[in-house]
């Protein structure tokens, strides 16, 4: 291998270990081919496409409200991010002003979702590590967040809070709900701090995850990794700092330098208190007023695009509006840009670490499988 960490010589690696598409270590169906020499992974290849459902195709020509709620069904983990970004695209295209209160409640939902997504990552990571007790402990903490999401949105997974012009009336926060969120945040902060201390001070876990699946900063940038995976390699980037929605909130961007499994886990653990900080600020300064702006008219609009920062990185949605219906829908989720990082992180490590190196990038192959290759004949 040269310094680019790539197989340059035209050597044929004969031993191939295929994992998937249905495999015990991976909950989602995807296929990994590991090319192995002396139990060391020399090359890896991830194939997606098993999950393809053609959501963009179904969305084509639907009324925009219907299409927005369909974007939620792209992913069951970051469903709020998808509907939020899709709604933002429509608001940008039509020039709709959203009441302040609705903006704050959207932020609360997004940060609650980031909490539950990061905790799911920790649980899944612990399970892949072989430490089921940690996984159960994180699931126990996560249940509080899930109950809060259920209380606000009415469903544990797909909440459907943002609508064009504001939020759904169901998601209005009254005094009782605010108190519950406050109590929940206190509980989560206390428990996650305890968990992080135990996690860091466990010598067995730390020796398992330190120095495994290292992704260098330059490689991460070259492979266009995004989100916490990129931040774990030392790149100080977070779209939330540049988003106008987050202007009035104070928070720190967490970075780590090593790029291994340990940094990836720690970045996500340390992002949880930051999210809690944002939720507390939003609750303390929740503006009064209405939650939905209904004075807007549907009109045609050219292709409009929007980026937001979601738990896994940068999310892109774009569509144009034609007679109240969406056209040319394109969705790009963070996991698809992280696939290169996943393949790269396995190379050079023992075959038992391969799954861990893939999981460290927080893959969500459900999000990923939408691309359609159009071949002209």
């Amino acid at each position, binding site marked *: 291998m040269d310094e680019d960490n790539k197989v340059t010589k035209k050597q044929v690696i004969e031993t191939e270990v295929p994992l998937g598409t249905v495999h015990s270590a991976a909950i989602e169906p995807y296929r990994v081919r590991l090319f192995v020499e002396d139990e060391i992974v020399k090359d890896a290849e991830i194939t997606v496409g*098993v999950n*393809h*459902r053609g959501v963009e195709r179904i969305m084509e*020509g639907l009324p925009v409200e219907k299409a927005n709620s369909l974007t939620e*069904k792209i992913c*069951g983990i970051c469903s709020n991010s998808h509907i939020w970004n899709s709604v933002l695209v429509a608001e940008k295209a039509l020039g709709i002003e959203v009441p302040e209160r609705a903006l704050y409640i959207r932020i609360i939902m997004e940060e609650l979702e980031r909490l539950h997504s990061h905790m799911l990552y920790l649980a899944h990571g612990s399970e892949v590590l072989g430490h089921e007790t940690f996984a*159960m402990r994180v699931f126990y903490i996560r249940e509080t967040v899930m109950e809060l999401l259920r209380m606000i949105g009415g469903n*544990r997974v*797909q909440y459907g809070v943002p609508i064009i012009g504001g939020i759904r009336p169901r998601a209005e926060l009254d005094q009782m709900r605010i108190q519950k969120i406050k109590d929940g945040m206190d509980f989560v902060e206390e428990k996650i701090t305890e968990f992080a201390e135990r996690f860091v001070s466990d010598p067995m876990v730390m020796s398992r995850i330190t120095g495994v699946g290292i992704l260098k900063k330059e490689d991460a940038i070259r492979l266009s990794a995004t989100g916490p995976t990129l931040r774990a390699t030392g790149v100080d980037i977070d779209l939330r700092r540049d988003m106008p929605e987050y202007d009035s909130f104070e928070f720190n961007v967490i970075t780590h330098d090593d790029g291994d499994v340990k940094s990836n886990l720690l970045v996500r653990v340390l992002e949880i208190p930051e999210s809690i900080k944002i939720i507390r600020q939003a609750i303390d300064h929740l503006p009064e007023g209405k939650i939905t702006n209904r004075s807007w008219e549907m009109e045609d609009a050219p292709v409009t695009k929007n980026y937001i920062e979601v738990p896994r990185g940068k999310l892109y949605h774009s569509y144009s509006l034609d007679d109240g219906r969406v056209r040319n829908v394109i969705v790009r989720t963070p996991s698809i840009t992280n696939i290169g990082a996943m393949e790269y992180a396995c190379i050079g490590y023992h075959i038992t670490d391969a799954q861990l190196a893939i999981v460290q990038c927080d893959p969500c192959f459900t999000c990923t499988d939408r691309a359609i290759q159009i071949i002209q004949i």
Partner: protein
Amino acid sequence: MSLKSYSRARAVHVMLVYTGGCNGCDIEIVNCIFSPKYDAEQYKIFLTWNPREADVLVVTGPVTKHNEQPLREIYKAIPEPKAVIAAGACALMGGVYKNINGDIPSEEIMGPVDKIIPVDAKVPGCAVRPEDVLAGAVAALPKLLNAK
């Protein structure tokens, strides 16, 4: 109660197969078995990923084109007696992806699940709630326990 059904009742192994849904149902099912709040393991329900040691197959998602054949093979690999639970709106009728009565019927979706393998219990919901999954597992148990 025969010895077989006695021992079966004390170790029900559930295998989760994911055939292309949105991840919501899967996490709720894993949550239902792992999370200390629901904790299906206290009812002797265990999660496994090996079809040869599974008793109950939980299928989520509308079955996509590429997942149809693996699903049949997994179903064949499970020893008798076996029960199948279809969980979630997608597994029951194709969900939003099937585009039912839509102008473009989706060619990517081969589901619902009962077109492909026989289903014993159906758990509705989008996404399914952990309580409902437990109820579905209980509804599928008599088939396992009463088998000879």
